[in-house]
């Protein structure tokens, strides 16, 4: 008697989201990036297509890098002062996208104006060929003046703008609809709010297929498992047909990993933890590779060696099966 085939057939696939627009599509990008598309549990290739190759965006900031750990600043040197140069450096590191964080627009970190931010966005766009993620400072009122201006400045480029939340979404949705961009839908470690944010965006006319879910990210040791479980539940629901959880997912790895004490503290304060520079790289690398197991489609990263290590891991995950 033949053993029952236990392979599971999922009724739905995770959405595919394309970021960036080539000249034939109204933009100026040399290439576009498409994320998502899994039709099975992460990496269970024998049950179905595992989806698009996970992508890495390298983080670029318009301000605030002075506060970054020494180990990170050392990697970049003077480009930290020039977002366009920094973006070019990101390409050298093998970034699939550039994630431009407009921290300088934060009222406490320079309070740069919407016009200044838009100028930075255009400069970064011009400096590289890859698609762009544009993320605000996180202060709602400020983002609601800055991001629409930036959105308009890169109209037609099909950027990924961040972020909308359950409480603050109308302004950015309107801008993204008007200027043809994709959106990051952010929720605070709460799967119910993740669904609700998506349905709110949908109700004001934004297509569910143009959203990327950001469930908030936690580094290894700082709540990683909780985020993993949310990503896992979301992915299972999406594969089972829940249109509100069918979106690809992004993880903000660099920011969270380098906030951890374990990433930077010297061996004197963490005896037995090994030397600090390597430790920081590992903290970021492992946070990223473990999120790949939860189905992360887009990783935002910082340290060049972590980027290299994660790319190698992705290469191996995506290599065709032997035998």
């Amino acid at each position, binding site marked *: 008697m033949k053993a029952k085939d236990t392979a599971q057939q999922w009724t739905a696939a995770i959405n595919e989201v394309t970021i960036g627009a080539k000249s034939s599509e109204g933009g100026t990008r040399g290439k576009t990036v498409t994320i998502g598309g899994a039709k099975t549990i992460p990496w269970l290739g024998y049950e179905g297509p595992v989806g698009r190759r996970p992508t890495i965006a390298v983080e670029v900031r318009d301000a605030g890098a002075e506060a970054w750990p020494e180990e990170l600043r050392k990697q970049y040197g003077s480009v930290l002062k020039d977002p366009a140069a920094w973006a070019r450096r990101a390409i050298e590191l093998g970034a699939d996208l550039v994630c431009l964080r407009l921290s300088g627009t934060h009222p406490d970190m320079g309070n740069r104006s919407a016009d200044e931010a838009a100028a930075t966005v255009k400069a970064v766009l011009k400096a590289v060929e890859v698609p762009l993620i544009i993320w605000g400072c996180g202060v709602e009122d400020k983002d609601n003046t800055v991001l629409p201006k930036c959105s308009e400045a890169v109209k037609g480029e099909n950027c990924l703008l961040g972020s909308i939340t359950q409480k603050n979404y109308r302004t950015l949705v309107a801008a993204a609809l008007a200027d043809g961009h994709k959106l990051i839908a952010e929720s605070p470690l709460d799967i*119910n709010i993740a669904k609700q944010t998506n349905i709110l965006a949908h109700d004001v006319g934004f297509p569910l297929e143009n959203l990327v879910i950001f469930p908030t990210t936690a580094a290894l040791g700082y709540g990683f498992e909780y985020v993993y479980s949310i990503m896992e539940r979301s992915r299972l629901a999406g594969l089972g047909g829940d249109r509100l959880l069918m979106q690809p997912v992004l993880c903000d790895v660099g920011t969270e990993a380098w906030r951890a004490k374990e990433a930077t503290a010297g061996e004197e304060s963490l005896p037995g933890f090994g030397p600090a520079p390597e430790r920081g790289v590992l903290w970021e690398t492992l946070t990223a590779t473990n999120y790949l197991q939860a189905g992360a489609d887009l990783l935002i990263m910082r340290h060049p060696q972590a980027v290299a290590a994660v790319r190698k891991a992705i290469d191996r995950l995506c290599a065709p099966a032997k035998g």
Partner: protein
Amino acid sequence: MYVIGERINGMFQDVRKAIRKRDQGIVQDLARRQLAAGAQALDLNVGPASAKPIEAMLWLVETVRAVADAPLCIDSPKFEVQEQVIPRVPGPKIINSTKADEADLERFMALAVEHNASLVGLTIDQAGVPASAEKRVEMGAMIASKALEKGLPMERLFIDPIILPVNVAPQQPGNVLLALAQLKLLADPPPHLVLGLSNVSQNCSNRELVNRTYLVMALAAGMDSAIMDPLDTELMNAAITTELLQGKTIYCDSFLDAHKMRSQDRKS
């Protein structure tokens, strides 16, 4: 749950008139509205008073197919009608229904298998509607094993353990719940379990309340499908909420609206 819209039935005055006058508009409107309200399939019943049931049924099929691709549930206990209609239904279809006796099962199942249709099997035999849960389960088991024998997959089999009106058969709702729980264990994967929900409140007061309450009880007992009125919003909301409470969907504040986004038949 799998909702089969009950509204296109000649028992209702508007449908009876529409069939008699061959007025497509009324029937098509009911088809669209039921699907928009969340029905996944549409029951078609020419009503007890129809002079030419086969012709009338074929007209209903043609009328509804012009506006909907959803599965059509051909509601007639007569094999002669099913035999003539089923081969001429384009797209997905459900034979509703056969009784649980050997001769009927034999020919109805052959028809279902030959025309790639689904089949509703009632737990009724020559002796009539069973009183006990046990008798229902026995007949259900017979229907399921016949399906296995004939090559009808469980995904295409619906077993209906027959709900009777609570005013005339006060023990029956409880017995049906017991039967549902046991019928679910018949096979893996189990056959679908369906009820003609509105029957529980036939000639009772507060029909919607009775239907809605029993729907929740039956879903909890293992029913996964019903022939019911999708235009009864509170009934549909009760179904959605029950599935949420069963852990079948993840909560969000707009969980009722969220469900409406799930099932959308494009053509309708």
